């Protein structure tokens, strides 16, 4: 098992947001986590990635057999966890080239590998750019600065492709995308699917899941996973709306 989340409780400033999440992800699987706004989807993504803003009060997150809760965010990334941001941060003055080269070489160093040569790095950039149909020269552009919504999300998937993570958590990668950009982003993600890698797609809408077809769908509601099923669960949700979940939960 690649990722195992056990009874995870987490919150911010004393306010509990996750109230006992249990989740298991095996290598090669694609999971979708759906749910209404404000139920803790992004918090779950942040906690797995290691955002210090949130306090974990109970439970554990086990990645490749080891608890990662004590690991700083960069170490989790080096272990193979990638977070695709809902709102990628603009960093004026840091070029994408320097950013990716520094990141890749730190990850390689952690794994005992030699840094990539300049030529090999640039070749890799070119190859991965094609995956998400980025035509522009990235070399001189600052990270996300002045990017459109679509470009930012493409850039997230580009980074994922560059860093080759084992577990990718894509937080609302579909938000703010038009249908063409959505297709490009989804194609990029699909090209990165493999037997060894797992992807957790967090989304509010079923739309993205037409392109990235999940193996398993979970519904997160009020800080807990309340329903798990196959890809048909996403369709059912789309049809009945989240009200259905709310009613069902209140009915209990």
């Amino acid at each position, binding site marked *: 098992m690649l990722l195992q989340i056990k009874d995870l409780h987490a919150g911010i400033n004393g306010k509990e947001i996750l109230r006992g999440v249990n989740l298991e992800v095996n290598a090669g699987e694609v999971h979708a986590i759906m749910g209404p706004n404000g139920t803790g989807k992004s918090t779950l993504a942040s906690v797995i990635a290691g955002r210090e803003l949130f306090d974990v009060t109970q439970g554990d997150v086990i990645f490749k057999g080891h608890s990662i809760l004590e690991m*700083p*965010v*960069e170490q989790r990334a080096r272990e193979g966890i990638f977070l695709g941001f809902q709102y990628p*941060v603009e960093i004026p*003055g840091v070029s994408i080239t320097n950013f990716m*080269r*520094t*990141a890749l070489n730190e990850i390689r160093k952690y794994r005992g590998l030699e840094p990539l040569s300049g030529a090999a790095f640039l070749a890799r950039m070119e190859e991965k750019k094609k995956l998400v149909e980025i035509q522009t020269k990235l070399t001189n552009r600052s*990270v996300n600065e002045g990017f459109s919504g679509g470009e930012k999300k493409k850039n997230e998937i580009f980074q994922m492709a560059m*860093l080759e993570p084992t577990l990718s958590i894509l937080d609302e990668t579909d938000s703010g995308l038009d249908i063409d950009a959505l297709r490009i982003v989804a194609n990029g993600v699909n090209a990165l699917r493999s037997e060894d890698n797992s992807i957790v797609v967090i989304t509010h809408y079923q739309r993205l899941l037409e392109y990235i077809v999940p193996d398993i769908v979970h519904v997160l509601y009020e800080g807990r996973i309340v329903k798990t099923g196959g890809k048909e669960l996403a369709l059912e949700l789309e049809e009945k709306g989240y009200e259905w979940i709310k009613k069902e939960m209140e009915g209990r």
Partner: protein
Amino acid sequence: MTNAPLNDVSQFISWFDENLKTIGRNDMPRWRELRKQAIKALETTGLPKPTDERWRNTDIAKQLSIPYEQHYEDFQIGLDVEKIFACEVPDLDTFLITMVNGWYAYRNSALRILPSGTIIGSLSRALRDAPELVEAHLGRYAKIEDNPFAALNTAFASDGIFIFVPDNTVVSKPIQMVNVVDHPENLFMQTRNLVIVGRNSHLELVHCDDSHNHTAGFTNSLTEVYIGENAGVDYYKMQNVNDHSTVLHSAWFNLERDARLNSFAISLNGGLIRNESFVTLNGTGADANICGLFLMDKKQQTDNLVFVDHAAPNCTSSELFKGILDDYARGVFNGHILVRPGAQQTVAYQSNRNILLTDKARVNTQPFLEIYADDVKCSHGATVGQLDSEAMFYLRSRGIGEENARMLLMYAFAAEVVGKIKIEILRDRIDDLVKKRLRGELSICDQCVLHCSKPDQPVVFEIDMSKI
């Protein structure tokens, strides 16, 4: 020569009386008169005190209390300038003029006249050989009444650099002025520079302060720059001196109609650095961009004072000053914009942004807008903060360690100022120096812009983990 602390005005006055013959040996009547006025002004104001508005946040008492050697005539017999610059990498193609310990290095050489008619040389020589030019501009822009160090400079300085660019002339390559401090004793140096740029002309000027040893040098230099109608000046002030050094520099720019100024003050290292920029927009359509970057650590201090005087309508000015302060370092920014009555259609922006890396580092930022016209656009903004935590998380989430993530963000913060530098080779080198500085690898032997990376080997930002 005298050797004493500098904290007593009456001492200065008696030094002046005793040494006037030497100090003023090349004087024209105008300078002689100015010196007397300056001494009078100094008697009235005294030396700066913490109660003076413009010195509220910078206490200079400690620097003034150390004994310094002060020379009233050139004292470096037999010093070989070529040797000091033996390891120069001459890839920044400039007309290089060197000052050593505050004195023009080739004191006996004649003024250099380029084919275009541009004159480069020492001010003391220009007093003799081009007196009408000096007479027309010397002391016309610097105000000595309420500026003790400008008064001190006017009273005591007798050498510096003189540049004259005639009308309709674009100087083909930058002129680089370097003052190198290399003396076994603590020195008090006062240099006076005069730059005259005729109408429709253009000049790039690189002005460096450097020290070659670890004595406590004190530089009080003053530069007057006249920019004629529709002329442009790009002025780069670079400061990379040792932690015991004090550098006070005031630059007085006068812009005529449609004149343009791009001014940079890049302070990489120094004990106490104070840059004063006085910009008078004297003709309609004049435009000034005034930028600064200071990277300070330990107990270093940088103080930037910018005074922009919108004296004519339809002028624009824009200020961008950024600072990164580590350890116990201190930064001060005083930005004063004056819009005079009748200076309608003025557009003036001012921005000062600072990053404090520790809770002991401090910045005082003081914007002051004084507006007497009603049809103007003025704005100012100041921020003091830490590195952006969202950006930190983003970088770290890609596997970049905390230290390197900080480094990337600091570098990016500084890059906004560096990116505005127009001379490409200079920009690449300052970029390189900033990176070195942030990695803690910059030494004062990295001679300003002289010994940096070669332009045909662009610096790739790769962090050397072993240094962290």
